């Protein structure tokens, strides 16, 4: 396991938002809000086009953070938070970067907090995702 210094940031990765990916994600969670499925109904609800469910943002990640090497097993997702700006909308080109913002050790546990920010093709902020991951050295 290796965690690079706080502030280490990935290269941006651009994600093209596709209607099929939104539909698959919404169906996998059993969602029914019409704006996830129909352009016409999304527009009736005040959106420009089909939008993604909020937690779809977790599928939009930056490129690998340089120097970040986490074990495949023994990782626990401890906390997850999102802040949302413009909706994630079909056909968007969302540029995403991931940054190390906090690390701390407590006994055998290492806490790592990563912040991922998405910006759309209009240079508008779309989301900030903050994930705290716990690695247990004794479980490795």
């Amino acid at each position, binding site marked *: 396991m290796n965690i690079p210094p706080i502030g280490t940031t990935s290269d941006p990765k651009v994600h093209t938002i596709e209607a099929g990916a939104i539909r698959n*994600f919404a169906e*996998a*969670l059993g969602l029914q*809000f019409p704006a996830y499925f129909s352009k016409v109904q999304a527009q009736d609800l005040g959106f420009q086009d089909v939008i993604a469910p909020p*937690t779809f943002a977790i599928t939009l990640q930056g490129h690998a953070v340089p120097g970040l090497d986490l074990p495949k*097993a023994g990782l626990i997702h401890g906390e997850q938070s999102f802040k949302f700006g413009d909706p994630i909308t079909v056909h968007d080109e969302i540029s995403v970067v991931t940054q190390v913002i906090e690390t701390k050790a407590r006994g055998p546990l290492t806490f790592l907090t990563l912040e991922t920010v998405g910006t759309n093709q209009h240079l508008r902020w779309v989301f900030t995702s903050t994930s705290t991951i716990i690695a247990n050295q004794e*479980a490795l």
Partner: protein
Amino acid sequence: MATPLTPVTHRVTQTDLVRYAGASHDFNPIHFDETIARQHGLPGIIAHGMFTMGLITRVLEPLLVQGYRITEWSSRFRTMVPVGQTLVVSGTSDETTLGTLRVSVAVSLEGHAKPALTGTITLHRAT
């Protein structure tokens, strides 16, 4: 005054987790391969934390239909969710200021007092 949201009950199946793995591109095998899950010291296949969190969206959908939009959402994952368990998603909503709701949610394994996930969501509606 806190208003209860209509709760949602969902039994987590292996099919759910395979679908969610495909839809989210999270192919960690502990979420669909029992042998590998056991090799990692788990009791069996466990749900993706983000699957459990995503299910909360279902109890929020009536608010979305009313024109509310989610601006912030934080969750703490407290216990694992083994496949085959039935989850109960419940929450309460408080209007903190005109047009702003603060929703507290919990996802519990049926028959267990301690929630597997707790969270807070802020929603806004233009007034």
